[in-house]
């Protein structure tokens, strides 16, 4: 299994997807800095804290930017074996189909957490620069550490909710369909992030749970968790089942 993990990581060597995803994960902190600068110059009387920046960052990370990136990564990890026609080379080695999918999901999990941490680091670095130039209220490193836990958890939760896209990538053998569907899904996020029913939409439900907003929507937390689990379990099951039974023509 360790060899499989090593090989999966080796496959990413010189891959453009890795630096691109890191740049993508830094987009949210940059957007936050621009927003902070705009607020500073337009409404100098307004003050905000490090936590405010992290809260907004988490919203963009979970509902917009990183969600798109994680879907792109998922589609890349699962479809590249088809587009580069490598399955006919590695499966007869032999490599177990189940193990291969397992390792891909594991890589996706590590990658998602890593990108969430990149977003956190980006927010911290840019907030620090802002703090030294313009000043931020309640700027404590310990506060940012609390947000680190939330960002890592967001990466883990998003990993679970992107599992259906792995199946979609396997089925369509490319990036296009998952990316189009993810764009629709993100539009759903935008529409529902301020609605109570967002607690029942798996991709906003994760954000509500992490921010402790689910209770205020009036929907039971267990129902929200149940929907997230249902979507991710279905995603994992169909991905494993399809790959195990698929004829590689």
């Amino acid at each position: 299994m360790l060899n499989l993990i090593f090989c999966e990581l080796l496959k990413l060597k010189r891959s453009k997807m890795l630096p691109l995803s890191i740049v993508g994960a830094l987009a949210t902190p940059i957007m936050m800095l621009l927003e902070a600068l705009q607020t500073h110059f337009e409404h100098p009387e307004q003050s905000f804290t490090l936590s405010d920046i992290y809260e907004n960052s988490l919203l963009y990370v979970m509902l917009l930017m990183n969600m798109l990136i994680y879907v792109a990564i998922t589609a890349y990890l699962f479809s590249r074996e088809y587009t580069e026609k490598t399955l006919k080379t590695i499966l007869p080695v032999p490599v177990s189909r189940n193990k291969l999918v397992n390792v891909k999901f594991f890589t996706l999990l590590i990658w998602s957490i890593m990108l969430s941490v990149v977003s956190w680091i980006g927010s911290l670095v840019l907030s620090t620069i802002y703090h030294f130039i313009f000043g931020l209220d309640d700027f404590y490193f310990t506060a940012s550490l609390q947000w680190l836990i939330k960002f890592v958890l967001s990466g883990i939760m998003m990993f679970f909710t992107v599992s259906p896209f792995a199946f979609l990538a396997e089925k369509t053998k490319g990036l296009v369909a998952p990316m189009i569907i993810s764009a629709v899904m993100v539009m759903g996020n935008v529409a529902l992030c301020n609605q109570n029913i967002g607690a029942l939409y798996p991709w906003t439900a994760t954000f509500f749970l992490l921010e402790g907003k689910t209770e205020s929507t009036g929907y039971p937390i267990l129902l929200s968790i149940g929907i997230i689990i249902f979507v991710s379990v279905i995603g994992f099951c169909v991905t494993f089942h399809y790959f195990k039974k698929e004829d590689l023509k």
Partner: protein
Amino acid sequence: MEYIIETENLVKQYGAATVVNNINIHVPRGNIYGLLGRNGAGKTTAMRMMLNLVFPTSGTIYLFGVDCRENTEKLYCKIGSIVETPGFYENLTAYENLELLRRLRGKQKKEYVQDALKVVGLQNERTKPFSDYSLGMKQRLGIAAAIMHKPELLILDEPINGLDPIGISEIRLLLSELSQKYGTTIFISSHVLNEIEQIADIIGVMHEGKLIEEVNVEGLHKSNRRYLEFKVSDTLAAVKLLENHYRITDYLIQEDTIRVYDHTYNSGEINKCFINNELLVTQVNVYEENLEDYFSTLIGGGGIA
């Protein structure tokens, strides 16, 4: 006889289409088995089933005498393969791609990678990623990947695709050497009948999903018929002369030519007889029915590829 590959009523259907229809292939240990057939004959699907890439609709595949669905890890580590154009990770170099396969196999010596690259002449391609390779280089890397772990069985689907004539010759020599020196069993498909003819011990012919012939090449060469061909002005008069003067009855008339399969008399003697009897002979040839003719006849004309 010990068969390294043996299929039993192997069938593959996609919907209503039967791509592989009840084939029974027998590949003896240490032999080179050439699988021939036109595009769409079912060769690649049969090979993919042997490599566990495609699942049979029915039938069984025995590899090394064992059902290929049992103990796959032990069975497949003894096999090297290429299926059509080899697929490798585009962003990795030849060395990295082989290193990845070495690690996936586990318990393999590190030198195997460099040795395999040397065999196919790619040892100096240290920095070029696979995406920048020519088709011939990709094919060479595929061969290196197939042989690097010193397998007992090679399953090669169109391995010489994209290779230049020198490359083809090198690969032919390599395969012959592997078979003769190390006793490697090779199951190879190709469109190039001539190539298969030169290296194979046994030839199987697939047509429309069926295995219509499985024949020993040596026996086939022995049974190939030589014939004399005369292009004459009057075939009926010529036939009369053949029957009356030489008692030849083994002949075939094709428009204005006669094929004589009887080797009792030489072409000069028969030609002289025709001329003496005022027949105009415009062409005399000595032919040997080659494998292509044989297989073309077998699958109903139009060539094997």
